[in-house]
């Protein structure tokens, strides 16, 4: 009986110790990501949303610490998901008031990752909760699932290569919730080529995916604020 009581009394202490351990890990990852003050990257963006037919776009991605991120298609038209700001890991790593809970380990793209669930405590944060999958050896976020208060859930899958030392991915896959595509009736007067009826049922409540493959990063060379306006 005594043993059980001691064990029960020790549980919160063990929990706190584990919480501190994941906070330490997050701090180490943040230190690594903080090496980058700003960057300009070029890449190819592929949009895979059920109701959008879009060509592969050449995009420029601008980032400035702590939370400025802009994706621009400089030679064409692209519909860029608003959740793409979450490509910037500082949105989660930069939180100061949060609760972190260990969630075990999981393999992401063949790499063993620590799963950490993060709950911001401040009401002002746009993030409701986030789950990070961290490669402990390289201190890299391999995957993140971010639930926002207003714009649904975003899932990010990162692949690192040349710029892993800065915590910058070579490829990012952003999966997000899409809303039903609706137009006022009769506004388009479409030509009926027999495909509309096949498509109609497929369009409801599907996830969208955007894939950015980076070809070049210019790190810490300065990015003017005017880019983000």
């Amino acid at each position, binding site marked *: 009986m005594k043993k059980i009581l001691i064990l029960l009394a020790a549980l919160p202490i063990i929990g706190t110790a584990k919480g501190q351990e994941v906070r330490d890990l997050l701090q180490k990852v943040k230190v690594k990501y903080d090496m980058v003050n700003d960057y300009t990257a070029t890449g190819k963006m*592929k*949009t*895979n*949303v*059920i*109701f*959008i*037919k*879009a*060509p*592969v776009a050449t995009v420029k991605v601008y980032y400035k610490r702590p939370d400025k991120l802009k994706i621009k*298609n400089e030679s*064409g*038209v*692209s*519909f*860029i*998901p*608003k*959740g793409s700001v979450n490509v910037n890991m500082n949105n989660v790593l930069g939180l100061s008031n949060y609760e972190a809970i260990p969630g075990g380990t999981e393999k992401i793209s063949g790499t063993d990752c620590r799963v950490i669930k993060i709950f911001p405590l401040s009401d002002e944060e746009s993030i409701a909760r986030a789950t990070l999958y961290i490669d402990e050896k390289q201190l890299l976020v391999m995957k993140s699932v971010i639930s926002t208060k207003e*714009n649904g859930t975003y899932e990010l899958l990162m692949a690192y290569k040349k710029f892993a030392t800065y915590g910058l991915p070579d490829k990012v896959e952003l999966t*997000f*919730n*899409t*809303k*039903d*595509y*609706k*137009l*006022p009736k*009769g*506004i*388009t*007067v*479409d*030509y*009926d*080529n*027999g*495909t*509309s009826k096949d*498509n*109609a049922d497929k*369009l409801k409540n599907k996830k*969208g995916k955007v894939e950015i493959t980076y070809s070049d990063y210019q790190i810490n060379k300065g990015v003017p604020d005017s880019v983000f306006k």
Partner: protein
Amino acid sequence: MFFTLLRIELFKIFKRPRTFIAFAAVAVIVILVQFALKINGKDFIQLYTDSQSDTFEIPYEKIQNGYFVCVAVLHLILIHVPLLVALIAGDMISGEANLGTLRLLAGKPVTRQQIILAKFFASTVYVVMLLVWMALFALLGSILLFGSEDLVIFKETDLHIIKSHDVLWRFFAAFVFAALALTTIAALALMFSTFSDNSLGPIVATVCVVIVFTIIQQLKVPVFEETVNPWSFTTHMLGWKGFFYVEKTADGETINGSIENPVALIKSSLVLMGYIFLFLLISIRYFNKKDILS
């Protein structure tokens, strides 16, 4: 002899001031739409993008380019152009009957079939010239005013983004198809024109037929969608839009140079050609037997 007849018919068409009402109307409509989109283009685009503005950054300024404006102009204008075509083609035979020159024409050493064909081809030339005029104002004018960018096409079920270098040939094909569609209207108006001795009847009849079938098409009720619409020429006249619907890969990537279901476009072209042939056949048969009393 046929070409002389055709030249005379073209001379008659372009001698009448009413012919140029259509050209003036097209120019005014195009300029008004361009002006409206220059001032309130963003509001216009928001009509289409409203459901997605929470999820995506909408590049309003880039969407509002010359190609987009031209498609918007064509979308608004091509529904009403049949009226302008009917004004000319509906007057081809009945106008002459009304003026008392039909008997004179029929007395020439040409067959009645040649008369109908010359009048039909003259109407077709008028249609083509009207479309060239439209292309000049709507396409060239819009590119000059708004510049060129990738083209975004909003359909009821999805939206298509076409690279700017893949757009011009689509406009060319769309104008050719529109010419075929409007020629169908010209043939219909000419057919009605052979039945009448005054111009108003054929013009009104043509416009009424177009309105009735357009309304039936827009009702989108199964009883008409399964029976009338697949064979209604107003359904197939919208085929010009089909050149702006693109195909995509499994990853959602637009395929350059592709058309979504080209077979449907071929079918639409054949249906329209069938109607032209049918209307011409009826016109020739009726005109061959017609007692020309005036």
